[in-house]
């Protein structure tokens, strides 16, 4: 479990995160949603330890991240998998080498064992036969799947995804969403996803945290988001006519 208490983060005079508190549980897909500029990415980077925060605490299974020594932070990071918005695959390596990279860095497995494990996770993300392609030769969807494979190859306890669907067509986006949810269930991970894709919210949002202007405005799930009367949430989630109709139908059906 990841527990966040009263998190504050500023850049100069700009107060970006203004006291966020929440928890992310094991085996659940946790979505952090909000408009562009609401502080989602800063929040995620604070969780990952890429940004230092001024006030509050973040604890991973009871261990407060700030209080850990440098070595303890390194150990913890080997339990973290991250899927970046732009995939962040290493340009100089092919797909197989990208997936094998965390194994090469943190395990003592032999070359064959590493290759077997990489083969397994590449099959798991439905990417068979693309092992020797360079990232620049792969499509956006393929790159995202490689990034997921690289993130889970070391059996992490925590998986973070920054807008995993951005730039993907709706069909591929759903494939990626379902894949993340299946992997979360299968490996019992704590998964935190930054998103502003409403399809993802409806599809996999087992827990949803809505940020607005650096504050936690609302917290719930894909079921409760239909019923909420929080104007900021409804204004954001049901901004399109289609979603407004979907919500209306859902509420009528469940009256």
């Amino acid at each position, binding site marked *: 479990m990841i527990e966040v208490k009263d998190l504050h983060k500023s850049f100069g005079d700009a107060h970006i995160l203004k006291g966020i508190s929440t928890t992310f549980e094991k085996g659940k897909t946790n979505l952090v949603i909000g408009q562009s500029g609401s502080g989602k990415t800063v929040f995620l980077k604070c969780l*990952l*330890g*890429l940004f230092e925060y001024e006030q509050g605490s973040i604890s991973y299974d009871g261990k407060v991240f700030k209080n850990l020594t*440098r070595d303890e*932070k*390194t*150990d*913890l*990071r*080997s339990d*973290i998998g*991250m899927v*970046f*918005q*732009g995939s*962040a*695959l*290493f*340009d*100089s390596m092919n797909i197989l080498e990208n997936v094998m*990279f*965390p194994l*090469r*860095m*943190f395990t003592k497995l032999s070359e064959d064992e590493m290759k077997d494990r990489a083969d397994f996770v590449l099959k798991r993300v439905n990417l068979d036969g693309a092992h020797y392609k360079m990232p620049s030769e792969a499509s956006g969807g393929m790159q995202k799947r490689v990034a997921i494979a690289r993130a889970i190859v070391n059996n992490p306890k925590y998986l*973070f995804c920054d807008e995993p669907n951005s730039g993907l067509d709706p069909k591929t986006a759903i494939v990626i969403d379902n894949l993340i949810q299946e992997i979360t269930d299968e490996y019992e991970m704590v998964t935190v996803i930054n998103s502003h894709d409403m399809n993802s919210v409806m599809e996999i949002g087992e827990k949803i945290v809505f940020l607005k202007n650096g504050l936690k405005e609302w917290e719930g799930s894909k079921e409760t988001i239909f019923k909420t009367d929080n104007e900021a949430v409804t204004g954001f989630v049901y901004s399109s006519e289609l979603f407004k109709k979907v919500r209306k139908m859902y509420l009528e059906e469940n009256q």
Partner: protein
Amino acid sequence: MKYLHNIGTYFIMIKDMFRKPTKWSVMKTLIFKDIDDLVIGSLGIVAFIAFFVGGVVAIQTSLNINNPLIPKYLVGFATRQSIILEFAPTFISIIMAGKVGSFITSSIGTMRVTEQIDALEVMGINPINYLVFPKFISLLLYPFLISIAMFLGVLGGLVACVYGGYGTLEDYIQGVQTDLIVFHIIYAFIKTMVFAFILATIPSFYGYFMKGGALEVGKASTTSFVWTSVVIIILNFLLTSLLLG
């Protein structure tokens, strides 16, 4: 204030380069790749420039000796001294600041823009050690490149002098062998090692700490070239004052 901040950050980066080393099996591959990119990949341009500049130095020296009291072997002597003392270590380093320095800044800068450096950090890898240390080690072979530049520069002078009709082979060789002071070669290689360190670290600094997008990668490469050249020229002056002054 900004300059002081940058200098401080640069020295912290140097310290971090030696902290938390990357696994040797991975580091070995990175070092070999950087030797190929930075040293072997520069052989052609260094050889080409050294050979022709050596020729130009010999021709210019020869054309400027009008006094019959000045011995003919001075052409070989002057070419050797110019090449060994200044051209090979300093001038080639400025060229390398453009070639290798821009490559280092743009490759690390692109990794920063595309979040590859963040990915390394999240994995618990020390990105500075992973990216900068192999470049520093591979540029320990820089004296090899400078030795080739020295040899080809003197050879270029010989070819231009003899085949251009500016002097005889015997005079040129006599000049090259006259008053050879071993410390001058040691001085040249001390400078080479210092410049190798500068070539590996300043461009890495500008790539690693760059902010922004693709446009800023280009700007960072230019800034990196300017500052690497400035530092090389200042250190050249200081080292010459200290070692030969």
